[in-house]
């Protein structure tokens, strides 16, 4: 117990975060910055790859794929090898647009030098001489601060030709996107960077082999990358000791919705949902009861009261039927309608669907139409079957990318955990959470309030 309390004070990712005025180059160096990159440049790329592999770092963008393994698919060449591509690329995925997710913003605005240092380490390891920060267009402050950090890094020879006397050369640029959720999907992001319409690509070929401009490319999430300077500086054992479970390191957890203290907290991997919800987010606001939550952004399955003691690590959350995702809780209270919540989420996915494949392009608006009908009190009992079928039509393996399956996750779990709410909307012809609506089928509904479960069996 004492150990877990002391571990709670280890906050490698956010220790240098200052949202008012991020650390300048000099201040960042004084605090211990660029030491991880220094260690990296003293090792061979292959050695650094081994360090990252053995550290157990997993991607923090949502999928949780081991970072070192992802990098290891990048082909490496000896100097002078005629088969070597003329370049490889590293891209930081800073297109943070998952509803309920705002963790990367903290790192981008509060500690821009940390990301620059991290990208030097990653690019050096995979042999990339060019990096892009793919930043969502709405993060204007982050764009300004990142450019400032990049300029300072060039001035101090941490970017550009022969970095710190080594033979390694790297250029880094910020690309500001123009607002589209699908750009967070790595192959769509690559198309966007090439100036094309940002639809995801078919895989294979995987970007590690043929990505940006047809060259080997690694796309990593901002939070994932920001772990690197600390792993290089402090070592594998230190990194693994932070977390009390099989996952290594710390993670930025968040909470939003009507909780007392919405926000972000860097914690060792694996606090329980209950700890984040009650100890850090302060529990529900006065007069509200907890109904359920999405554990890691809009595209994760609902979890409810019975799951609150689940640790927020990749495996544990998966075991109870959801995904850790981005680790940002979206909390539903008892005065907000679950059907309305799923409708809002589905509208988002329908709007942001790139339109490439039919299940997603047609399925998400169809689900919106049905959900809207139910929410407006016009739903029929058959609509629940339609929704269940749509969940099947849009599931993994039937779509071009993960967007539609992501849209299915909150819907299918809502149908499971908030089934009675869906039934009540249909039975009573109204939304009971919307006080301006009056039940349209009151005469029927008075008789049907208790036999709801009977109706459910039809």
């Amino acid at each position: 117990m004492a150990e877990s309390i002391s571990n709670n004070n280890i906050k490698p990712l956010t220790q240098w975060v200052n949202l008012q005025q991020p650390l300048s180059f000099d201040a960042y160096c004084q605090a211990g910055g660029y030491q991880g990159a220094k260690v990296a440049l003293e090792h061979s790329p292959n050695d650094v790859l081994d360090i990252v592999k053995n550290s157990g770092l997993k991607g923090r963008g949502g999928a949780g794929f081991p970072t070192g393994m992802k990098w290891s698919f990048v082909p490496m060449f000896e100097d002078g090898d005629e088969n070597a591509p003329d370049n490889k690329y590293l891209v930081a995925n800073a297109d943070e647009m998952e509803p309920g997710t705002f963790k990367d913003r903290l790192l981008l605005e509060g500690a821009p030098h940390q990301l620059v240092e991290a990208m030097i380490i990653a690019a050096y390891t995979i042999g990339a001489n060019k990096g892009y920060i793919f930043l969502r267009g709405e993060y204007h402050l982050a764009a300004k601060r990142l450019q400032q950090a990049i300029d300072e890094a060039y001035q101090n020879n941490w970017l550009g030709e022969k970095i710190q006397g080594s033979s390694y050369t790297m250029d880094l640029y910020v690309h500001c996107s123009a607002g589209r959720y699908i750009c967070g999907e790595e192959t769509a992001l690559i198309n966007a960077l090439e100036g094309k319409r940002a639809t995801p690509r078919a895989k294979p070929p995987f970007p590690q082999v043929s990505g940006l401009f047809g060259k080997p490319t690694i796309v990593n999430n901002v939070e994932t990358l920001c772990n690197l300077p600390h792993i290089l500086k402090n070592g594998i054992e230190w990194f693994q000791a932070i977390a009390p479970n099989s996952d290594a390191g710390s993670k930025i957890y968040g909470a939003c919705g009507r909780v007392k203290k919405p926000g972000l907290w860097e914690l060792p991997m694996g606090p329980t949902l209950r700890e984040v919800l009650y100890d850090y987010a302060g529990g529900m606001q006065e007069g509200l009861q907890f109904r359920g939550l999405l554990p890691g952004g809009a595209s994760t399955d609902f979890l409810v009261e019975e799951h609150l003691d689940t640790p927020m690590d990749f495996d544990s959350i998966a075991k109870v039927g959801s995904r850790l995702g981005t680790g940002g809780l979206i909390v539903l209270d008892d005065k907000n309608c679950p059907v309305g919540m799923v409708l809002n989420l589905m509208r988002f996915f329908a709007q942001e669907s790139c339109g490439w494949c039919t299940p997603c392009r047609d399925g998400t608006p169809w689900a919106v139409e049905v959900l809207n009908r139910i929410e407006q009190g016009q739903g029929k009992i058959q609509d629940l079957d339609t929704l269940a079928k749509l969940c099947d039509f849009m599931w993994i393996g039937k779509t071009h990318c993960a967007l539609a399956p992501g849209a299915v996750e909150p819907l299918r779990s809502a149908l499971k955990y908030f089934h009675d709410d869906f039934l009540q909307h249909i039975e009573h012809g109204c939304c009971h959470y919307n006080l301006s609506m009056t039940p349209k089928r009151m005469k029927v509904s008075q008789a049907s309030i208790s036999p709801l479960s009977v109706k459910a069996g039809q």
Partner: protein
Amino acid sequence: METIDTTTIDYQHYLSATEIAAIEHEASIMETREAAGIEALKVVQEHRGWISDESLFAISDLLAIPIAQLEGVATFYNLIYRQPVGEHVIHLCDSIACHLTGLDSVLAAIKQHLNIEYGQTTADGKFTLLSNACLGSCDKAPAMMIGTEHYQYLSPESAVDILQKLAVKGEVNG
């Protein structure tokens, strides 16, 4: 109906020297000229407020991007406007965190104050109202973005207050 002769829109006659310089700078850091397409759209929109058909043809000419491909890019993004917009474009966040914390009442107040719906511009040309898919202000919801400014913890009153100040002075104090 007026048609546009695509062959006559020469970028040198249409785009300003400043616009061309900014676009060429973007093209210089990418491996291909077509990769600067999205940046070029943003540069021209910055100067002209929106992307007209003429602007699209001129960029197509400058960067040698097929017009259909550039149109495909322009219409793909939420922050590229292919129709004229008002002086201030309001991007009201309609994501789930804002929905759970009172978006509906803020939206109703803004619509009533400006007397417009989503996608419309006020008669005086001051404001255009659009939604935005999650501004990343989920812990400070509800939120909206106008220009490069983000406004958070909105209430119906504070949102209207911000719009009133913008209408009068063009900026919000503090």
